């Protein structure tokens, strides 16, 4: 297993400061500060949207206004009140109107940003369009608007649609209209309503019946303009008997203002379809005092709508000053399967309240939850999970395992499992452990030649192994590096 070695060298190379703390200097076109019906109209107009979508947005905006007092309070996170009128809701690179057709036309600043992010050479080559350089398609979201989309032709041969959702609205309005908001309704929660009103762009994927997507589809998100709330909207539909693996990864530049990120991701799996959604999340966590970090309030949900369908969420959460995130699965189709594999780190003053919801509706549905929470520094981490067995979920089963690892004395790990079973034939099994990295372990590993940070990274990667091995290979390597980098300064 080469990856641990990679981790070690990544930790070694990394400096004390946030590795990706740089700001690309690209002129940004802003909508005026604040939120109003006019801003919603501005965003819709910028994206050149049809009327039905504008109305959908306005509808969401009006619902959000009514919810304005209902900003969720139940999570175990604490932050100053957000002034939603004091933020920008739209920013785009200037090239928006005239999207580049090839990489040559892409701003070298953007390319160098990818370099700094350490996007694997292989994917850079693909971005550069070198023939036969591999098979990961990258829909690169830079700020809010997609600036580079590759491998489209290869995908379109198979009838696969992978494009910015703004483009899908124009080219495939029926699909978007049918599924947008069908998994996460506008009024699902405060942040989902906000996103529905002001989302800027995001990815759209459609895999036709019987097609196995031959490559991992991958998107890199990046917050770039200061004080710009990010509202991504992702919609993935796997039609009958299809399969797709989707990768989402992100890092963000250093800054002083807290930044709100409220994405919505909707997945739909029809009969016999499978969606594997993997995230390596690395928003800027803030400094030692938690200042300047990203607020990450995300709604991710998948619907196993068809029989025998399957949705897996795998996430590695290392960043954000605050994370509020519960990738969930609605197990509607009989025999459908939902999975949630998560590694989350809270270091310094980071707070994470994350987990999943598995809602068993169909018969013989099955869910697995493996959560690995790591707390260091003054980090606070809560696993919050709901397993619900509806009345019709005959013979449904769930297995949950939630492990917490504590590094140091000032951090906290909490596990809050909710089980709600309304069917006597359903089975729910929950296991939880809390452990610490012992001085004996650290000494043992250091005695073999690793420095304290390398030692922690190695032990943590071991702790998280069950989840890391669920990630696609290249992503797993990246994730292991991140675990090491995220825990710098947590010992010694």
């Amino acid at each position, binding site marked *: *297993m*080469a990856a*641990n*070695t990679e981790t*070690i*060298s990544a930790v*070694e190379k990394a400096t004390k400061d946030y590795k990706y703390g740089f700001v690309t200097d690209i002129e940004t076109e802003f909508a005026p500060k604040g939120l109003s019906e006019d801003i919603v109209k501005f965003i819709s107009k910028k994206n050149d949207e049809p009327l039905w979508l504008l109305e959908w947005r306005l509808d969401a905006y009006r619902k959000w206004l009514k919810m304005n007092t209902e900003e969720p309070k139940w999570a175990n996170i604490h932050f100053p009140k957000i002034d939603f009128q004091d933020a920008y809701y739209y920013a785009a690179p200037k090239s928006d109107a005239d999207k580049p057709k090839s990489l040559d036309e892409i701003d070298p600043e953007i390319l160098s940003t990818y370099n700094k992010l350490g996007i694997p050479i292989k994917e850079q080559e693909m971005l550069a369009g070198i023939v036969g350089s591999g098979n990961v398609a990258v829909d690169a979201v830079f700020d809010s608007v997609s600036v580079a989309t590759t491998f489209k032709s290869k995908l379109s041969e198979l009838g696969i649609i992978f494009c910015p959702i703004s483009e899908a609205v124009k080219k495939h309005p029926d699909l978007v209209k049918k599924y947008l908001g069908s998994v996460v309704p506008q009024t699902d929660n405060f942040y989902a309503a906000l996103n529905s009103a002001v989302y800027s762009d995001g990815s759209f994927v459609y895999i036709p019946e019987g097609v196995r997507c031959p490559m991992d589809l991958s998107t890199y998100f990046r917050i770039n303009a200061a004080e710009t709330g990010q509202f991504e909207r992702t919609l993935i539909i796997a039609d009958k008997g299809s399969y797709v693996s989707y990768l989402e990864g992100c890092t963000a530049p250093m800054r002083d203002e807290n930044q709100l990120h409220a994405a919505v991701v909707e997945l739909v799996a029809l009969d016999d379809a499978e969606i594997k959604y993997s995230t390596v999340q690395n928003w800027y966590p803030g400094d030692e005092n938690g200042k300047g970090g990203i607020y990450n309030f995300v709604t991710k949900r998948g619907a196993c709508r068809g029989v025998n369908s399957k949705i897996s969420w795998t996430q590695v959460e290392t960043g954000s000053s605050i994370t509020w995130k519960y990738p969930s699965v609605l197990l509607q189709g009989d025999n459908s399967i939902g999975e949630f594999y998560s590694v989350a780190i809270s270091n310094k003053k980071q707070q994470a309240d994350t987990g999943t919801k598995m809602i068993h509706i169909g018969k013989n549905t099955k869910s697995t939850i493996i959560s690995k929470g790591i707390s260091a520094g003054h980090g606070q981490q809560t696993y919050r999970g709901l397993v619900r067995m509806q009345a019709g979920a005959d013979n449904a089963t769930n297995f949950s395992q939630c492990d917490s690892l504590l590094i140091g004395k000032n951090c906290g790990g909490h596990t809050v499992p909710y089980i709600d079973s309304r069917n006597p034939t359903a089975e729910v099994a929950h296991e939880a452990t809390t452990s610490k990295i*012992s*001085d*004996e*372990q650290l*000494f*043992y*590993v*250091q*005695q*073999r*030649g*690793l*420095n304290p940070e*390398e030692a922690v990274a*190695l*032990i943590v*990667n*071991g*702790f*998280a*192994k*069950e989840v890391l091995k669920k990630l696609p290979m290249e992503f797993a390597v990246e994730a292991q590096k991140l675990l090491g980098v995220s825990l710098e300064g947590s010992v010694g």
Partner: protein
Amino acid sequence: MSTTLEIKDLYVEVDSKEILKGLSLKIEHGEMAAIMGPNGSGKSTLASVLAGKEGYNIVNGTIKYLGNDLLKMSTEERASSGVFLAFQYPVEIPGVATSTFVRTALNAQRRNRGEDELDAMEFLKLARQKAKELEMSEDFFQRAVNVGFSGGEKKRAEVFQMSMLSPTLAILDETDSGLDIDALKIVAEGVNKLRDNKLSGIVITHYQRLLDYLKPDTIHILADGKIIKTGDKSLALLLEEKGYQGITGAN
């Protein structure tokens, strides 16, 4: 013969309890020294201090290793410059495969020494060879470090790690306890093989049997925090016969 290790007048406290009380010890290049002593006399404490474990208060004394001030070196620097401790109680690292662990360690040491890292194939070849010498099944490569290992397997895995890392100074803390008779012989042969490469060693043991195989150059008796007697193999035999009481009394 040059000196590998020289400890002078070492006083060490743990939790304000004095454990080592004026210990002096010299190990020459290529020398194999055995340390014997009653339970609780401070043998493992000495081993931990040499390897650089935290939590020990060095009240007085000096330790020179290959001419350098060992006490000024970090734990990983000591390891990279050839100090290896085979633990009396090896530690479990869940989820980390033994081969990953050893490879990470070996390459970290090589990097620290400014040497090239071994790639996966080179490493595997070496690991296979060492496992074979120690008559260990390769199954344990993929098993998490020490997790679920039997007492004897843990000790054998320590010796495997040692031969992979080929140290300059090996400290074996009761590596023989828990090993069956055959395993003891195999492990001793493994250690002897390293001696050909001029390994210096400190072998902590309670039993004569390991010494029969290792044939140490010197035997030290550690009691109440210091070396109270030094001799050749006849000292161990005397000990076997009279016990510590007899020896301390005779002193």
